[in-house]
């Protein structure tokens, strides 16, 4: 990254702040860091009223982040490739219900969980096939998926909660602790590293950015954009199932209505993290910071005992501001 011996450039040296702002995910990093400093300062100043740093609160945060994190990583990869998946919230519930009821029927969770992921991948591929074969907007196709699979959960299971009672080894793998750190949080960190390598260090990542950034150029250079998009759809579906597994292992049961609205939160996290709605722009670290930011704000509002609607209003504002900011950056890039 170091620029050595830059020959005479006509552009002036930018201030550090501007340099950070133009970095991918630079702005969100700045916002996140500022929020953390304020929260930590607040927690140190009022340790009894604002328990941000209490072990209980940190545990809650670490448990909450992975579910949205997995959904957002999958949705984000797909957004970078230039498509949407609104069905991930429903897929998240459907695959969790499938896994829980299989385990209830006597199957090992170590077999049921991969089956759940397989179902997620299959639904992702189905979304991709319909979208690409008929040339439809994925927004509409997966909106159909959202409603269809939400209904399918009720058809398959009814509106009752499903108990999830896996073998202890499975529980500790996804809901236990390692060195005092929540296992689910370790998983999400591993996923973030894996997705980073895939998106920013692997050939496929380059093709994903090209497919979303300029489909005509990608095709002209010989990239099979349909194949790249299918892979992205499959990843989005698979990660929705992974989120379902992590959430179910933590809670020990599945509510048929639990996934509603999560797809929008995942897309919100991506937008806040600097992904373009037109595809081709974004970073894994941005997605992760977007997720962390949503959960930090949720957490702070809970600690302040603010009514729930404040949360919605806060996130809503954040999304619009983030989208406007991204648009500015994009226009500057296109100029």
């Amino acid at each position, binding site marked *: *990254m170091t*620029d050595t011996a*830059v*020959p005479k*450039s*006509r552009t002036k040296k930018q201030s550090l702040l501007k340099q950070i702002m133009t970095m991918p995910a630079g702005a969100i990093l700045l916002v996140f860091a500022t929020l953390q400093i304020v929260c930590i300062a607040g927690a140190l100043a009022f340790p009894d009223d604002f328990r941000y740093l209490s072990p209980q609160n940190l545990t809650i945060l670490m448990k909450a982040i992975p579910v949205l994190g997995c959904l957002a990583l999958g949705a984000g990869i797909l957004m970078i490739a230039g498509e949407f998946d609104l069905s991930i919230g429903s897929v998240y519930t459907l695959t969790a219900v499938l896994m829980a009821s299989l385990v209830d029927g006597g199957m090992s969770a170590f077999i049921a969980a991969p089956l759940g992921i397989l179902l997620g991948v299959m639904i992702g591929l189905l979304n991709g096939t319909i979208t690409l074969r008929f040339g439809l907007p994925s927004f509409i196709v997966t909106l159909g998926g959202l409603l269809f699979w939400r209904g399918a959960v009720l058809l398959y299971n009814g509106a009752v909660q499903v108990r999830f009672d896996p073998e202890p080894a499975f529980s500790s793998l996804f809901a236990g602790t390692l060195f005092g750190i929540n296992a689910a949080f370790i998983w999400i960190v591993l996923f973030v590293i894996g997705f980073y*390598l895939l998106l920013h*260090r*692997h*050939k*496929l990542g*380059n*093709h994903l*950015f*090209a497919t979303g*950034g*300029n489909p*005509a*150029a*990608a*095709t*002209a*250079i*010989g*990239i099979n954009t349909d194949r790249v998009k299918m892979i992205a759809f499959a990843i989005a579906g698979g990660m929705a199932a992974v989120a379902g597994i992590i959430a179910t292992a933590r809670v020990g049961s599945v509510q048929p209505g639990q996934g509603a609205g999560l797809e929008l939160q995942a897309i919100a996290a991506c937008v806040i993290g600097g992904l*373009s709605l037109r595809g*081709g*722009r974004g970073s894994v670290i941005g997605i992760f910071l977007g997720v962390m930011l949503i959960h930090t704000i949720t957490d702070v509002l809970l600690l302040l005992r603010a009514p729930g609607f404040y949360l919605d209003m806060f996130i809503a504002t954040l999304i619009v501001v983030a989208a406007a900011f991204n648009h500015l950056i994009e226009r500057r*890039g*296109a100029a």
Partner: protein
Amino acid sequence: MMSAPNLLELHNISKSFGALTALRDLSFHIGPSEVVGLLGDNGAGKSTTVNLISGIHKPTSGHLSVDGKKTQFTCRSDSADAGIETIYQNTALVDSLSITRNIFMGRERTDAFGFLKQAEMRDIAMEVLEKAVHISGIDSPDKLVGDLSGGQKQAVAIARAVFFKRRVLLLDEPTSALSVRETEALLAQVLKLKAEGVSSVLVTHNLYHAYQVCDRFVIMSHGTKVFDVQKADTSISQLTEYVVLT
């Protein structure tokens, strides 16, 4: 006739899209180290010809020859394998990626697991930018293509073609988005490449730019060739007449 075989020949090519006949019995060739101007008004069939040579369209009848051997392009990589690279006006690069990543787009250097050899690609990109193209203002291969001007983008596309050892460059309306200075640089680039043995086809309706660098002109009208002439045997007014009046 020339002694060396022609790099590319089109033999009696016709192309129909349903009821529309885009090309009729079109034949011409591109020789080694030659700059050919493919001229014609809008709708003359230039774009279809470009797509056909790039392998995007297949001819309804007739065939192509590469190095004198009859061949058929079924997809774009076939024409790339034959050493032909099409450089479209603005479409061949991804704005949100760096110059390095654009140069190696679809042809990444990777290890056995598909992970990118970033340092190696960056070094090559640096070298390509220094040696193959001298368009001012590109100081780092890490720059995003979206931050470049039209001429700089085209220079990157040409650098990419040169690096991957193309023998024929198809430049589709190369000067339409360029400033005067950038146009001059581009045309100089085309001549420099010719000296190095790379042929170019300038597909354009700007006769003046074509006249500056082309050795030969192929004029198309209504999907077929109406004129094929060496520069020495014609003038710009005669070319204009053929483009406008046929």
